[in-house]
């Protein structure tokens, strides 16, 4: 009986061998794949096992981590002034994942980023607990507060974006109404309730929408800055004070309709400066129509239209249409028809003009830090395009400064500071029935000629009556406060 017995012994050995091979396949070949699958709860457990790194503004963290009382996720995210900073931070929730900076820089914040590998290995050897790195933002706390408080005191919906023109640093990024990401950062029923409360289906005000980056509004008259830039760049007019040779009323080509101005303003044959000061639709409509769709589109693209911006949080692409006839181009050139822009986009327009025609890539992450605050990556300012020559930029600056000195934007004046701006009141809704959006874009210039801040403010105010809404009345004071906050924080 020994011969079959030995064979059985071999057979049992093969059974064990099969198990060994399977185990090597499972725990060596497939190990990383299995360990990293998103349904594998260990991924989430590990993610919340250590205090998350912080998002930092002006040297102070605007986020924190606390130990949860229940469940298998150890640490929960907290936010300081959550609603104010939500458009910057996004949220990080145990139950609802994360978005915006919290999602994009998750690797650094959790400490799992490859760039932290060496450090993590050292920590593992020395037995130090794992820590997350920090994300240092470009934001300015005072400007953000001015922006958020300004929107909040108005009470309607709106957004503010402030940029540093010379670098593209985002100084303020506010959206109202907002939400507190702390309220659903955990994994409990309360968190789920708070999460549901702020979803668009339960709250028509849509507080989780980041209006500064993700909502496009018809820019209205603020778009005339782009049209003016196109006119100068294409040599349609050589200076701001040249007569534009524009009739009033101006009949849109191919139609019998005159392009109307708001109110009874004197726009016949005025200069570009005067047309911008008074916000003449007829003049800029004609400029757009004369330049044509292609040239207008080209200039708009140079200002950043038709492209998503990655700050690194993505912004929606702003729109200037192609394949339009002359009357459509005319309407588009005064910020109506299909033209739509994010608040970020209009801040970029003001910033490019203020920066002598050079548009910088907007960004909000200044530096990524390892847990012991060593820099991991520093963002260098990057030029995006040159929508204007320095000479033309200075002409346009003069025009925008006239708007604030004696035009529609007088409410943005700051003593001892040169301010250039443009108001906008954009119509929307079926047959323009809804309340228009109030816009204001502006920049401030210090005595040394440098420009520390460019701002775009948009307010959609459904409670105010239609006549009250004008960029100069509602949006300009907020822009002024934001610019003031930036200037004061520089001192």
């Amino acid at each position, binding site marked *: 009986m020994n011969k079959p017995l030995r064979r059985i*012994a071999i057979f049992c050995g093969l059974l064990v061998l099969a198990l060994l091979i399977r185990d090597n396949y499972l725990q*060596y070949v497939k190990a990383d794949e299995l360990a990293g*699958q998103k349904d594998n709860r*260990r991924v989430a457990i590990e993610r919340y096992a250590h205090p998350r790194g912080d998002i930092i503004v002006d040297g102070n963290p605007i986020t924190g981590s606390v130990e949860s009382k229940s469940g298998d996720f150890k640490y929960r995210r907290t936010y300081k002034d959550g609603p104010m900073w939500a458009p910057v931070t996004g949220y990080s929730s145990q139950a609802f994942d994360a978005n915006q900076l919290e999602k994009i820089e998750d690797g650094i914040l959790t400490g799992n980023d490859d760039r932290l590998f060496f450090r993590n290995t050292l920590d593992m050897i020395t037995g130090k607990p794992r820590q997350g790195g920090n994300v240092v933002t470009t934001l300015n706390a005072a400007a953000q507060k001015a922006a958020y408080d300004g929107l909040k005191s108005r009470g309607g919906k709106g957004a503010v974006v402030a940029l540093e023109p010379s670098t593209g640093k985002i100084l303020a990024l506010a959206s109202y109404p907002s939400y507190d990401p702390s309220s659903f950062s955990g994994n409990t029923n309360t968190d789920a309730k708070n999460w549901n409360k702020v979803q668009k289906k339960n709250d028509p005000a849509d507080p989780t929408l980041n209006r500064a980056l993700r909502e496009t509004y018809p820019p209205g008259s603020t778009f005339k800055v782009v049209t003016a830039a196109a006119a100068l760049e294409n040599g349609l007019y050589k200076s701001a004070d040249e007569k534009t040779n524009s009739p009033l009323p101006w009949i849109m080509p191919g139609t019998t309709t005159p392009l109307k101005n708001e109110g009874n303003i004197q726009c016949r044959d005025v200069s570009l400066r005067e047309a911008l000061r008074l916000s003449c639709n007829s003049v800029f409509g004609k400029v757009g129509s004369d330049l044509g769709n292609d040239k207008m589109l080209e200039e708009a693209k140079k200002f950043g239209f038709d492209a998503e911006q990655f700050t690194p949080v993505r912004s929606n692409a702003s729109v200037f249409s192609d394949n339009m006839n002359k009357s459509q181009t005319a309407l588009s050139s005064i910020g109506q028809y299909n033209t739509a822009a994010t608040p970020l986009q209009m801040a970029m327009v003001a910033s490019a003009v203020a920066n002598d025609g050079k548009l910088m890539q907007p960004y909000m992450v200044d530096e990524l830090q390892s847990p012991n605050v060593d820099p991991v990556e520093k963002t260098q300012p990057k030029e995006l395009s040159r929508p204007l020559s320095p000479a033309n930029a200075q002409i346009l600056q003069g025009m925008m400064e006239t708007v604030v000195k004696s035009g529609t934007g007088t409410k943005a004046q700051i003593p001892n500071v040169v301010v250039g701006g443009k108001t906008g009141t954009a119509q929307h809704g079926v047959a323009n029935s809804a309340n228009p959006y109030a816009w204001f874009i502006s920049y401030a210039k210090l005595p040394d000629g440098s420009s520390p801040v460019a701002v775009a403010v948009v307010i959609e105010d459904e409670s105010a009556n239609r006549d009250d809404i004008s960029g100069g009345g509602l949006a300009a004071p907020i822009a002024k406060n934001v610019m003031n906050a930036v200037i004061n924080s520089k001192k």
Partner: protein
Amino acid sequence: MSSTSNSPTHHTSTIGAIGAPSRRNTELALLVFAVAIPVFAYANVGLAINSHVPAGLLEYGLGLGLLAGVAHLAVRKFAPYADPLLLPLATLLNGLGLVVIWRLDQSRLLQSLPHFAPSAPRQLLYTALGIAMFSAVLIFLKDHRVLQRYTYISMFCALVLLILPLVPGLGADIYGAKIWIRVPGLGSLQPGEFAKIVLAIFFAGYLMVKRDALALASRRFMGLYLPRGRDLGPILVVWAISILILVFETDLGTSLLFFGMFVIMLYVATERTSWIVFGLLMSAVGAVGVASFESHIQTRVNAWLNPMREYQLSRQITHDGVLHSDQLQQSLWAFGSGGTLGTGWGQGHSDLIKFAANSDFVFATFGEELGLAGIMAMLLIYGLIVERGLRTALAARDPFGKLLAVGLSGAFALQVFVVAGGVMGLIPLTGMTMPFLAYGGSSVLANWALIGILIRISDTARRPAPTPATNPDAEMTQVVRPS
């Protein structure tokens, strides 16, 4: 004790273990390690989970040491020539199993489940009963050949044990498999674990008597010796019983285990390869046939083929009338997350398996916390137990002992394969438990009894023959040393 270990004469020409040392001191030394390793593991779990050495460390160490000591003394007294590896290996596995069960008792997630009760104290009690069972086997079973007398009683007992879970009011359907009985006051029992041993006794006794008839009366056809029609009877009966188990108890593992054990013993008894071929064909036909209409088996097979889909189904409300379970996917994740070296004791998340984490799926906790390295070691320990059992079968001098040892070792190997293969996704999951590691009284008791019987057979096999006949050839070449 080791009076023979330094015997002056060496009968080099005599086959067998004459003059062989008893190896009891080797066993004792190995047992020290088999107790020390789980004690360190226990301390490690405590440090990892609560940052301090568990309060019960001393009691646990002493308890396990005492049990191992009792078992060792029983072997020393009643089976002095037994294989020295079996007891330490079984003790090591049992000890590590206790550690992991205690470790899972500490899981907040498992504690929050309904009907949670700490399992480690009860497992320790079962271990004590298991050692008592082991000692009882050694004390009362002076010679394994006695069991031969009970061949047909064994058959009857085995059938009763297998049918018990189907008795209304006694059987319990747990997660679709009806392999349990509920005894009031005692908890659940898995009679299949005991049936395994009793059936091995029956097969060994039966085949020893019938093997010549089964082996010799056959025709040759295409290189195979085909048995006569009427000799096919026994294998058909066992096959039919296995199929019935599969259909009524819906447990693929038990069914496979019994049929596989019978085929192995039949092959060893008759030395006819054709039995293996027949066995494989019949089990394939049986498994596929039953799976074609038994939804529970189909669910298991589908879960095996696509564990991820099953996981997703388990998280939604389905109306297909099937209980979807995420256990297999959770088990695979546990293994995968363990990686090469594992997370370390107490630092894994195998509690995510929830139901049966410390019984059917206990191996996954080892996989996650000890990693590939640990699992390979565990599998080799199991392999070593099986091979020591087969070594015992080789050394056994009586056919009944040979058959019984190969049957028990083979069943043990099949069980390890079916369970470990199931939780690692190599084959469909079955409702059996990893011997010695898993929580459960029946399993611990039955497996200690199994080791007891193997030790008894190996003691008989390795015992020096009484007063060996002098070999004239040997004497002629003997060197006479001046003393």
